[in-house]
């Protein structure tokens, strides 16, 4: 489990519009990499290219290379469905399937993978919910609707759903931006635990969060309004926050942006 991601010279387009330009970076396995940057700088778009979710949006396409260990995600013949089973994703707003129970939400991905047998499913559901620090809160009501949980619990349910299929990489697109501080803390603790098993990439607008949870931080920015977003620098989180090598990074982090 947990693979390295190597991105080289990646451009992302929506139709004719170039959203992100020339990203080259490496994401280390068993670590947390945070993407920070102003809104609209393409960090979420770039995140989506790591499991080909950008293709869901009409006109979405890339140029360049994304390697997952030695597998090129964009080689011809690679099925985006298979990619997404390897690279899981958690979204900004908790999105448990509303018609499903807590149990079925966690089991959804397993069933898609063809896992059968109640005992086996029970085991994985329990393990995943425990892995998402949610088991104790929901073990007595697994058959209740997932939508009845609080926002923070729903987000942890979504994380349980994502890790149930045992992905190599977990992408998180602002997973705490719709949550209160206590739920946020719970998710951040969880991220700290999950990184021992997974490669985690998290997009966040919360600078303290990036500083708290990540090992490495990538700063994205727009060269100018209307220009594509680009990667300004990526480095150890300590370094980015204390002694960044690019002035724009320091300006952004210290709030002197723009």
């Amino acid at each position, binding site marked *: 489990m947990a693979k390295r991601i190597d991105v080289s010279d990646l451009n992302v387009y929506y139709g004719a519009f170039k959203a992100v330009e020339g990203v080259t970076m490496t994401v280390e396995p068993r670590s947390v990499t945070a993407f920070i940057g102003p809104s609209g700088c393409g960090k979420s778009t770039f995140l989506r290219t790591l499991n080909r*979710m950008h293709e869901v949006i009409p006109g979405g396409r890339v140029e360049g290379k994304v390697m997952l260990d030695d597998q090129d995600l964009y080689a011809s013949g690679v099925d985006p469905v298979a990619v997404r089973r390897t690279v899981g994703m958690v979204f900004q707003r908790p999105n*448990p399937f*509303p018609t499903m129970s807590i149990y079925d939400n966690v089991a*959804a991905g397993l069933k*898609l993978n063809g896992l059968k047998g109640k005992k086996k499913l029970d085991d994985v559901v329990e393990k995943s919910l425990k892995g998402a620090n949610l088991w104790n809160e929901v073990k007595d009501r697994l058959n209740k*609707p997932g939508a009845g949980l609080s926002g923070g619990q729903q987000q942890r349910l979504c994380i349980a759903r994502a890790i149930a299929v045992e992905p190599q990489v977990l992408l998180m697109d602002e997973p705490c931006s719709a949550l209160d501080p206590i739920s946020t803390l719970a998710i951040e603790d969880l991220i700290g635990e999950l990184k021992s098993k997974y490669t985690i990439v998290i997009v966040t607008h919360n600078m303290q969060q990036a500083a708290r949870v990540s090992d490495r931080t990538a700063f994205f920015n727009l060269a100018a309004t209307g220009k594509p977003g680009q990667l300004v620098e990526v480095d150890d989180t300590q370094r980015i926050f204390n002694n960044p090598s690019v002035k724009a990074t320091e300006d952004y982090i210290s709030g002197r942006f723009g």
Partner: protein
Amino acid sequence: MATVTGVSVADEVPGPPERSPLSADGAGTRRLGDRLFGGAAQGAGILVIALVTLVGLFLLWQAVPALARNEAGFLTSREWTVSGDHPRFGIVELLWTTVVSSLIAMAIAVPVGVAVALFITQYAPRWLAKPAANLVDLLAAVPSIIYGLWGLRTFGPKYEPVQTFLQDKLGAFPLLSKTSVSGSGTVMFIGIVLAIMVLPIVTALSREVFAQTPVAHKEGALALGATRWEMIRTAVLPFGRPGVISASMLALGRALGETIAVTIIVSTLADQTVWSWSLFNGGETFASRIANNAQEFDSPQKAGAFIAAGLVLFILTFIVNAVARIVIERRKAFSE
């Protein structure tokens, strides 16, 4: 006052004069416009309930005297003699034909309608989705007499060989056996024509709900590694389920009550015809029996017999809607 700590200007200006600060100014409930609109809405609601009740009462009122004089079992007899001193009539044949033809219609229209709606909302490229949706809507606007004529003149002759083929090959099954009816005026054919008639209803309403599936749910499924069809199964279909049920019930209501298309297509059975459970039998639905005999409503007793049949149809559609409501309510906790 203004010098006392903790008292602000607002405390001294409690809104309009001569009114304690918390008494309402009537903005929420008591202004003329609000009262008018509220009253109108309430009135409309009461009017609908009153209409349904009155229709039911009218049917009951007219039907009861005729039913009281009926000498045959109303729910079990196939006879239909409504005049004279000894009327004998029963609805079992009407009930069978109505229900079975409508069920055939649903069995065809619901899967096909849902499939068309899924194609339009989930598969079709944008340039195709819009015209296709409009075309389906247009189909819903075709008057039922046109479907009847088309079924009778164009589709019927094409369908007959299929029916003959099925009867020849599968006639051993009671539901598909040969009957005295030779042409296309059969329960099966009515069901098929009704299916085409109600298809646009199922499609249009299903399309509306499928299109509203939140992107978050669809992406949630896709991010788990769902294929398009798996995404539809995990996100779109469960989300659209109540809508599809409502659409089906609306369509079923239309199929049950459809009159003119059925009347001009179906072969009525002569008196004393031997009963057959075959789908290739003729027969009449409630609506077509009433329509075919409109000229007979010349005495309260005769009219009462037909109205009694109408009452059963009325109750039938009521039950259908009630069942649909129950099905939707039962899963409500899972649909928010």
